[in-house]
């Protein structure tokens, strides 16, 4: 098995989770109601926890300590997709992004559980347990808000119009995509993307939303090779602010 290919995959998985977890965490204390504030914050914490697990696997393959990797890299070194970088905007956008991303995560984890890389297969089985609630939360809110009233539906549709083509960036291939598939570590990104579409599109239609055009999805590629949106740099600056005060501090 190619360690370089595995590292490439792990960085993508970890960075998506870290950045999305940070974006989700921005709602702490600002959620629409107390119960949802707690639920969303809890999922943010899950995502950062999952990122830490992937960074730990990277550490075992010779990469830096998880804290160091998460908090000292330059923006260009991140391998996250554009979808997770975008500001949280309104709650509808955060919910739609959470739905699209977590459904993609569900598809990917279902394959990683059978990965030929045993550490990853073991971890995917564990993480899938927490993702079950994320899926339930995402689907319930999607249905609820898309069918509540015209104001809610319009906000959900606007959020989907923006987030949907961008979500294709989750499946942006890298130079290791074929190696990973040939070695049984995970299927081709294209295959995962098709499976994800068959999962999310009927749910979006059932919720009463219109599927947006995805013609421009290639515009949102680049994250996997370090080409990011302008939103990532301020996020990383804010996220690493405390760590940067004293990188050698013992926590």
């Amino acid at each position: 098995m190619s360690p370089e290919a595995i590292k490439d995959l792990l960085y993508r998985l970890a960075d998506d989770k870290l950045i999305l977890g940070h974006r989700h965490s921005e709602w702490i204390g600002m959620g629409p109601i107390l119960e949802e504030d707690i639920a969303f914050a809890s999922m943010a914490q899950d995502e950062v926890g999952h990122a830490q697990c992937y960074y730990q696997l990277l550490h075992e393959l010779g990469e830096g300590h998880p804290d160091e990797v998460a908090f000292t890299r330059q923006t260009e070194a991140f391998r996250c997709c554009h979808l997770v970088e975008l500001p949280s905007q309104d709650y509808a956008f955060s919910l739609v992004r959470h739905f699209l991303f977590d459904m993609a995560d569900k598809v990917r984890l279902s394959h990683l559980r059978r990965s030929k890389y045993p550490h990853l297969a073991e971890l995917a089985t564990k993480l899938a347990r927490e993702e079950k609630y994320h899926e339930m939360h995402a689907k319930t809110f999607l249905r609820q808000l898309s069918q509540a009233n015209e104001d809610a539906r319009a906000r959900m549709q606007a959020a989907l119009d923006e987030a949907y083509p961008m979500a294709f960036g989750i499946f942006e291939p890298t130079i290791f995509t074929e190696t990973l598939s040939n070695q049984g570590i995970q299927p081709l990104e294209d295959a995962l993307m098709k499976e994800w579409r068959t999962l999310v599109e009927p749910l979006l239609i059932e919720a009463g939303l219109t599927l947006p055009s995805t013609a421009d999805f290639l515009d949102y590629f680049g994250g996997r090779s370090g080409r990011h949106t302008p939103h990532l740099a301020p996020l990383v600056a804010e996220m690493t602010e405390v760590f940067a005060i004293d990188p050698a501090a013992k926590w």
Partner: protein
Amino acid sequence: MPPISYDPRVNRVELPDAGQLHQENALDQWQNYEVFQQMKRGEQHHHVGAVHAPNPEMALLFAKEQFGRREQCANLWVVKSAEVYATEYDDADMFQHAFDKSYREGDGYKVRDTIESFKRDLDARLGLETAVVQPGKAAEPLAESVAQSRKTGDWEVIELPDIGKGPRKIWVKAR
């Protein structure tokens, strides 16, 4: 100029002045649901608190994170608070007894689970096998078959006096 923050806590807090507070009507609000949590399958559900939600599905969704996250949980119930009927506190004196009737109080039931689990644990630690004898039957034949199936060798049986009602428990002990 300081960098622009995208954190909504920093740049999206726009609270209205106290004078223009928005009034909500009763029906604009979500409903209250009481939450009952079961720690282990087979145990009773206990009331743990309440959540606000527009429907039962979302009440369960919220209940999971509010109450199912910090401790063991096997199952949750939600019930609309409006569906709960209660006695009046003004009538609380009806629960007082005029005479001492403490013999009626069901205190024993409250610790039953603890006692049962202690008994099972104790039997296991003492190396005792247990069996249940049906009413009217002798303990010996059953004890012998238990001893044989466990290859206990030389054994003795401990039994409480048969008071003639219902099945009774015996202990089979290696001598």
